[in-house]
């Protein structure tokens, strides 16, 4: 815990953005460990994969494009400090009269949750209660969550895939991109070197295992921690590793951008489709009971399908975001070449 605070404090003060990013990753990872000690294994899994994994990759990708040194400053900002202290004070004020954490008779544990804990094994028949709440009781939230990822994928594509415009009019506004940079080249594609034997061999050995593990997480989420989201992230991580080691073009030839866009959409449609089918069969939206003659079997089938939908969308969206960032580097590199000529 104290490590956590130390980590965040140093994020605030460190000036090199690479170091700050790494510290953020470490904070996420410590957080994941704390989540395990708090019994939230699924969340810990996700936090480790997302916070310490994917988001670090994204930050580094960005820093490669924008430069990693923060401008010398930091002057002391009084206004924000006052606001922060005020927010903290309100939260501290709320501590009194608050139920003590960890006690079994808190309202959190006595009102809605017992139903999930006591009845979900019989109503849904899935041992992992997090999965049953996630995919069935609050399945609509998860549908929304899938949509959030879809929206992010769409948004990043919209923002980053734009061609450069007004080239002929005002070239002087386009500041050359490697100005103010600290010695790093702008392109990520250079990462895929042809000559590094060891990474190649290790990656070739690792990637199949990553995919197998992802599939295990995907379909085993009913019984242990895991599920579509975590599996999707792992799957995407496998392909990203592939892209980093063997260059982006190879990865693109495996999974093309067009296919990714199709897959992002397909995942959402699969999830929504399950809902629509259950409507047609006479239930409410996402009511899995009607999917099979036996309600529990129906729940099983429904959860399996929607988790698959989540997995597909997450994998594809993560890849789309990654491709967009790296593709941007290519675009910039191409432009820099043009300018040189």
């Amino acid at each position: 815990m104290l490590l956590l605070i130390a980590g965040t404090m140093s994020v605030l003060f460190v000036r090199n953005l690479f170091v700050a990013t790494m510290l953020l990753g470490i904070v996420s990872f410590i957080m994941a460990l704390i989540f395990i000690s708090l019994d939230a294994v699924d969340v810990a899994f996700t936090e480790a994969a997302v916070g310490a994994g994917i988001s670090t990759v994204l930050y580094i990708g960005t820093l490669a494009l924008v430069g990693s040194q923060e401008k010398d400053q930091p002057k002391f900002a009084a206004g924000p400090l006052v606001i922060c202290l005020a927010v903290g004070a309100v939260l501290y004020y709320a501590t009194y009269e608050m139920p003590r954490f960890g006690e079994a008779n808190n309202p959190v544990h006595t009102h809605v949750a017992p139903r999930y804990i006591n009845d979900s094994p019989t109503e849904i028949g899935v041992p992992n209660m997090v999965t049953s709440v996630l995919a069935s009781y609050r399945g609509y939230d998860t549908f929304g969550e899938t949509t959030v990822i879809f929206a992010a994928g769409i948004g990043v594509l919209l923002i980053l895939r734009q061609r450069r415009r007004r080239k002929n009019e005002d070239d002087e506004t386009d500041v050359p991109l490697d100005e103010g940079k600290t010695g790093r080249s702008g392109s990520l594609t250079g990462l895929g070197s042809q000559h590094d034997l060891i990474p190649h061999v290790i990656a070739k050995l690792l990637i199949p295992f990553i995919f197998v593990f992802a599939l295990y997480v995907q379909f085993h989420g009913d019984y242990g921690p895991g599920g579509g989201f975590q599996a999707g992230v792992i799957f995407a991580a496998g392909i990203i590793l592939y892209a980093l080691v063997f260059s982006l073009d190879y990865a693109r030839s495996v999974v093309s951008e067009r296919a990714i866009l199709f897959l992002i959409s397909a995942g959402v449609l699969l999830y929504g489709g399950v809902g629509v089918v259950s409507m047609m069969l006479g239930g409410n939206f996402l009511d899995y009971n009607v999917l099979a003659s036996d309600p529990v079997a129906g729940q099983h089938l429904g959860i399996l399908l929607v988790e698959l939908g989540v997995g597909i969308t997450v994998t594809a969206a993560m890849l789309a975001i990654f491709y967009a960032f790296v593709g941007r580097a290519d675009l910039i590199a191409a432009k820099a070449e043009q300018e040189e000529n």
Partner: protein
Amino acid sequence: MSFGFFNYWVFIILLMIGLYTVMSRSNLVKKMIGLSLFQISVFLFYISMGKISGGTAPIVVDGPLDTAAPIYSNPLPHVLILTAIVVGIATTALGLSLVVRIRESFGTIDEEEILEMKDGA
């Protein structure tokens, strides 16, 4: 293990640091990092809420060995935070892609420098 309000206070401190980073730093990437910290701290708050002392992860342990019914921690906050983590990464991705584009058209990712430019642009 009863941990009282310790987690909650850690949450407050992390939240304050995150928020302060967002508001006081003019580097856009640093702002995004602060925002991520700010969101992560909220995860800690929710998860701490779901813990029951002496409880175990909310996955049914089957088998006849299971004589004394175990106490499971509350699964609901876990579900909510899974969603919130996803929202967090989505925001991060979108924010960073904006940073990249800003760097391209303004040549800097420092907010103050951009503000100085605004009148000319």
